[in-house]
C-alpha cells in the first residue's frame, strides 16, 4: 500500500515501509533517530506535503514536512479564475489596440476595430468552450477504453479519490515519447491524457505520481488558465504572423494607401501596428511561462500529498527525462500543459523568465527530500 513517507534507516540507509518501527534490512529501530531525510536543514520545498492518514507512522519517525491545508486548493482555484478573467480582459484591450492600429495602417480604423471584435468573440468563445477538445485533438489523444488501459483507468480513479475530485476522462496518445497533460475548465469536466510510451515504461507507483500531479493541476484549476492561455496565445501568435506577412487584407490595403494618399498618419499607425504585432505574442508568452513554473512545484508537492509517495513521482520524472518527452503535435502554444516540457530541456541555468517548467533535476531533488532521501551532491 502506498501511503505515508518512507523512512530511511539511520543505520544502513535502507528505505523502509511507511509506519515501520524497525529497519527491515538491519533491524535498527527507526523512531527517534534523525535519518538523512528528516535532518532539520534538509530543504523544505515550497508547499511541502501534508502528512496524515490511516497508516500514520509514530510522530517522531515521520519527517516533519510542512502541511498543505486543503484550503490552498480553493485559493489557487480562485486565483486561476481571476487570472483567466484578466487574460480575457487583457486580450480584449490587445485586440482593441491591434484592430485600430492595423485598420489605421490600411486607412480604415473602423473596419479594423469591427473585424477584431468579431475575431475576439470567436476566439474567446472557442478558447473557453472547446479549448480542451482542441488541445486534445492537436496531440491526437483518443479516449482510453478497453482492457489494455484498465490499469490506467484504475490509477486515475484512485488518484481522483485521493484528490477528492470527480474522476476525469482518460485519454491516450499513441507515441513512444513519455509525457502527460490535463485539461478542462472545471474539475467536473476535466480530462487527463497520457502517452503510450509513458504507460509502457512506468510502473504503477510512478504512474500514480504522474496522474496525481495532473490531478493537482485539475483541482487547483490550473487547467482552466493553461488551456485558455494555450488557445488564445496560439491564436494571437498566428494573427500577428498573418499581419507581419501581409496576408490579412491582401493587396487592397496597399492600393488604398497609395490612391488615398495616406501620408504621415498612416505611417505612424503602421509603425504602431508593427510594434504591437511583434511585442504582443512575446508579452503573452512571458506571461504564460512565468506563471506555470510555480505551478509545477506546487503540483509536484500536492501530488506527493495525494500519493504520500513522493519517490514515485521523482522516479517517473527521472524516467521521462531519460526516455524523452516528445509528443506528436507539440508546439509552442501547448508546451506549458505537459508534465515535462516536450520541446526544450531546462537546466539550472535556463532563464527563469522564458522557461515553462522548472529544471527537472530540481523537481526530482525536492521530491526526494520530501521522501526522506538526502540529495546526492
Amino acid at each position, binding site marked *: *500500500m*502506498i*501511503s505515508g513517507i518512507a523512512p530511511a534507516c539511520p543505520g544502513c540507509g535502507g528505505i523502509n*515501509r511507511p*509506519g*515501520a*518501527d*524497525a529497519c*527491515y534490512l538491519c533491524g535498527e529501530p527507526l523512531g527517534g533517530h534523525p535519518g538523512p531525510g528528516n535532518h532539520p536543514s534538509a530543504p523544505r520545498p515550497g508547499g511541502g506535503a*501534508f502528512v*496524515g*492518514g*490511516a*497508516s500514520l507512522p509514530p510522530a517522531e519517525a515521520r519527517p516533519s514536512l510542512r502541511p498543505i*491545508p*486543503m*484550503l490552498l486548493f480553493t485559493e489557487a482555484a480562485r486565483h486561476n479564475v481571476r487570472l483567466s478573467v484578466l487574460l480575457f480582459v487583457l486580450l480584449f484591450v490587445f485586440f482593441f489596440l491591434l484592430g485600430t492600429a492595423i485598420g489605421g495602417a490600411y486607412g480604415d480604423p473602423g473596419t479594423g476595430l469591427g473585424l477584431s471584435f468579431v475575431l475576439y468573440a470567436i476566439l474567446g468563445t472557442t478558447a473557453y468552450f472547446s479549448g480542451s477538445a482542441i488541445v486534445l485533438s492537436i496531440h491526437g489523444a483518443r479516449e482510453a477504453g478497453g*482492457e489494455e488501459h*484498465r*490499469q490506467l483507468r*484504475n*490509477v486515475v*480513479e*484512485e*488518484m481522483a*479519490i*485521493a*484528490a*477528492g475530485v470527480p474522476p476525469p476522462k482518460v485519454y491516450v496518445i499513441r507515441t513512444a515519447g513519455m509525457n502527460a497533460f490535463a485539461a478542462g475548465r472545471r474539475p467536473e469536466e476535466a480530462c487527463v491524457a497520457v502517452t503510450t510510451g509513458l504507460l509502457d515504461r512506468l510502473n*504503477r507507483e510512478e504512474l500514480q505520481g504522474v496522474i496525481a500531479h495532473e490531478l493537482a493541476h485539475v483541482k487547483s484549476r490550473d487547467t482552466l488558465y493553461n488551456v485558455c492561455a494555450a488557445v488564445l496565445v496560439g491564436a494571437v501568435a498566428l494573427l500577428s504572423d498573418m499581419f507581419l506577412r501581409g496576408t490579412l487584407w491582401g493587396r487592397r490595403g496597399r492600393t488604398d494607401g497609395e490612391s488615398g494618399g495616406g501620408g504621415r498618419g498612416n505611417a505612424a499607425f503602421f509603425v504602431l501596428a508593427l510594434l504591437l504585432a511583434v511585442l504582443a505574442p512575446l508579452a503573452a508568452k512571458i506571461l504564460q511561462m512565468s506563471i506555470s513554473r510555480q505551478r509545477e512545484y506546487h503540483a509536484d508537492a500536492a501530488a506527493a500529498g*495525494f500519493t*504520500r509517495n513522493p519517490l514515485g513521482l521523482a522516479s517517473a520524472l527521472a524516467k521521462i527525462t531519460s526516455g524523452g518527452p516528445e509528443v506528436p503535435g507539440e508546439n509552442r502554444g501547448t508546451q506549458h500543459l505537459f508534465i515535462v516540457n516536450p520541446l526544450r530541456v531546462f537546466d539550472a541555468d535556463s532563464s527563469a523568465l522564458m522557461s515553462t517548467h522548472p529544471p527537472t533535476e530540481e523537481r526530482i531533488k525536492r521530491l526526494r527530500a520530501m521522501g526522506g532521501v538526502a540529495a546526492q551532491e
Partner: protein
Amino acid sequence: MAYIPLVLLVAILAWFVAAYNKLVRFRNQIKNAWHQIDVQLKRRYDLIPNLVEVVKDYMAYEQETLTKVIEARGAALSAKGPAAQAKAEGLLTETLKSLFAVVEKYPELKANQNVASLQEELTGTENKISFARQFYNDSVMTYNNAIQSIPTNFIASFFNFAQEAYFEIEPESRAVPKASLR
C-alpha cells in the same frame, strides 16, 4: 457618519454567513468521504467471489488459502462497529495478499487473462480504499482545524459543530510483518 455602524454590521454578518457555510461544507465533505470508503469496500466484497471462482480450479492444493479469504470476507461483511470492521478489513487485506503470493507460484494462473484483470481490479480497489480513508482523514483534519481555530471556533461552539473522529487502525495492525528472505 451614521452609516458606519450599519456597514460594520453588514460586514460582520457577511463574514458570519461565509464562515458558517464553510463549516457546513467541510462537514458534508467528511460524510461524503466516509460513504466513498463504503462504496469501495462493497466493490471489494463483490470482486472476491469472482476471483475465487476463477482461481479455484487451478489451486487444488491451496484450498486453505482460498478458505481463509472467503472466511475473512464473511467476517468483514458481518463486522459491527468501526473498530471491529477496521480489524476485519485489515485481516481481509492480509489474506488477499497471501492469495496473490500463491498466484505467483502458478505460471499458468499468472498467464490467465481473467486472473490478471481480476488481480488488477482488486489492487485498484485496495488502493482506492486506502486513498478514500486518507481523503477522509484529510477532510477531518481540515474540519477539526476550522472548528478549533479562532475565529470560526465561536461559530462552531454556538451551533454545536462537534469534532469528527479520524479513521484509525488497530495498534496491532501497525506491527510490520516480518519478511523472511529465505
